[in-house]
């Protein structure tokens, strides 16, 4: 087990290296920070001076190695755009993203799993067909369009929820949170629903197919024959067995929500890290993008690691890799 952990650690180190190279080359290909930052009344001399202050006039290799040596010392660099250290810039926006991500996942689980189990148990009912129809519709509406439709209905027509921004926050242990504040919660609801609709559809489908398979297993038939009452059957036998894949997928989905809620955060002007990433890509702010994606790749390595360990614990036949 220890060697498994160590090997994984080594692999993730390599992964971080590859990611940093990819982003370096990618941002170099995509944009020129001087062209984005310099306004039209810059003379050519101003532009050259700016390039040298940003350090982007050096060959890419040199820039990369100076980045690496700084990173090893824990310095991820300074944002081109904000001229602030990169790490605090990301960290101060993290709570906003985490809050919405957890709320969305929570809504997804609480709505999706019961709907899925219901559909799995009552395959022939009309209501099941309706659920299946709705989840397919929800799944196929592009996220950005859904967001604007939500704004149109809830903010413009019904005027019950605010359209954008974060609203009031409460300080808790030095972190700004919206969860414990009515105004904050109201602001959080539309972006969370926007992210949750897709999750609800997915969880419903997962729970439904899981239920269908489990219900036909021999042990379920046996349990039914033994006369175990239905609620107990669902709680003890069904739920336990279908939760394994659901929890696994939820972990990965949570990672995705934290890393790439870019469209939702942009449309709702939610000041989280997804919006920061998109803005930084568009503003040629390479230090932010590199640091961000290194953190994200590390997060996914950890998530996948946990998933693999869980698999291994559940199914001893699978070997460690």
């Amino acid at each position, binding site marked *: 087990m220890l060697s498994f952990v160590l090997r994984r650690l080594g692999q993730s180190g390599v992964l971080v290296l590859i990611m940093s190279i990819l982003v370096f080359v990618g941002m170099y290909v995509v944009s020129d920070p001087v062209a984005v930052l310099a306004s039209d009344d810059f003379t050519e001399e101003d532009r050259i001076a700016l390039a040298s202050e940003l350090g982007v006039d050096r060959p890419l290799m040199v820039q990369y190695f100076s980045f690496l040596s700084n990173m090893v010392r824990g310095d991820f660099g300074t944002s081109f755009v904000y001229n602030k250290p990169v790490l605090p810039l990301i960290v101060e926006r993290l709570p906003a993203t985490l809050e919405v991500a957890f709320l969305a996942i929570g809504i997804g689980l609480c709505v999706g799993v019961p709907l899925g189990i219901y559909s799995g148990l009552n395959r022939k009912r009309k209501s099941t067909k309706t659920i299946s129809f709705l989840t397919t519709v929800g799944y196929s509406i*592009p996220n950005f369009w859904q967001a604007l439709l939500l704004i149109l209905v809830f903010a413009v027509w019904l005027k019950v929820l605010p359209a954008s921004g974060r609203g009031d926050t409460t300080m808790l242990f030095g972190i700004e949170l919206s969860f414990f504040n009515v105004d904050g919660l109201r602001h959080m609801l539309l972006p969370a629903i926007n992210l949750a609709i897709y999750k609800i559809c997915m969880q419903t489908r997962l729970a439904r197919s899981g239920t269908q398979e489990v219900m036909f297993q021999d042990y379920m038939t046996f349990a039914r024959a033994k006369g175990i009452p239905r609620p107990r059957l669902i709680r003890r036998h069904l739920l336990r067995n279908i939760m394994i894949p659901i929890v696994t997928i939820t972990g990965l989905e949570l990672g995705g929500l934290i890393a790439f809620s*870019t*469209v939702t955060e942009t449309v709702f002007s939610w000041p989280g890290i997804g919006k920061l990433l998109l803005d930084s890509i568009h503003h040629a702010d390479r230090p932010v993008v590199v640091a961000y994606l290194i953190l994200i790749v590390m997060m996914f390595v950890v998530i996948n690691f946990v998933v693999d360990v869980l698999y291994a614990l559940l199914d001893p036949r699978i070997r460690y890799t």
Partner: protein
Amino acid sequence: METAVEHTMTPKPDKPEPTMWERFRKVFKGHPMAIAGLIGVTLFILTAVFAPFIAPQNPYDLAKLDILDGLLPPGSRLYDGTYSAMGTDALGRDILSGVMYGLRISLFVAFTAVLVGSTIGVLLGLLAALRGGWVETIIMRAVDLKISFPGILLALMLLAIFGTGVDKVIYALIIGAWASKARLVRAVALSEMKKEYIDAARLAGLSDFRIMTRFLLPNSISPVLVVLPMSISGAIGAEATLSFLGVGVPITEPSLGLLIANGNDYLLSGKWWISIFPGAVLVAMVLCINVVSDRLRDHANPYLRAKD
């Protein structure tokens, strides 16, 4: 030698093989929703294929568009007399024609990307399971890498290097599609590998390649087939999102997604037709694909078939 083996392995039919049509009928008989979906899918595909012949206007020919025809509501007539059943967008593009042509692009992009991406993903997943060791490590870490890499940056890179184009969007979506399939197939294949028949095949001296194609592939592919229609919906949505972010298909050849993204700007001012029509068609198409594939999957599931 080989044909002899295959011959002996083919079970003797005790009744005449059902024809394609009979099997087809058996799947859909008694399922009106599925039949409706099937008709829908057929219509959408036919519309996409024959769009140039049936569309009232060629929405991709800039010389034919006139901004003086812009923003006409559904049921108007264009300056040249063309009847516009779904109205026009700001540039005088007939929405109905745009939807027909957009279907072509969306379907083509999504199907190509998902098929190619899934094929690559399945093969890599199988390879990872079969070979293990460093091959598996590299493939699975590549999956991690891909999942951590934002699609927008990838699409921007392709755009910056190769310029805009439908093909670049397909590349971006292929790179987006393979990873989840590889992960899925590897997981399934790993548990297949523990079964006796693989050991038997190994003992019989079959090559890795033959084991992969003859045994592992057919037994591991069903979960991929199950998620395939979802992947196609997902790819259509992903293409739409890339267009919304300004890195999708060329703006002069809008897909359904790009039509929706353009129409988004007009939603609050009451010019609903620009985004609602393409959006409704997109949803209807995805629904039809899902209904049909659900039926096929239920039919393929022995437990459920027994209950039917």
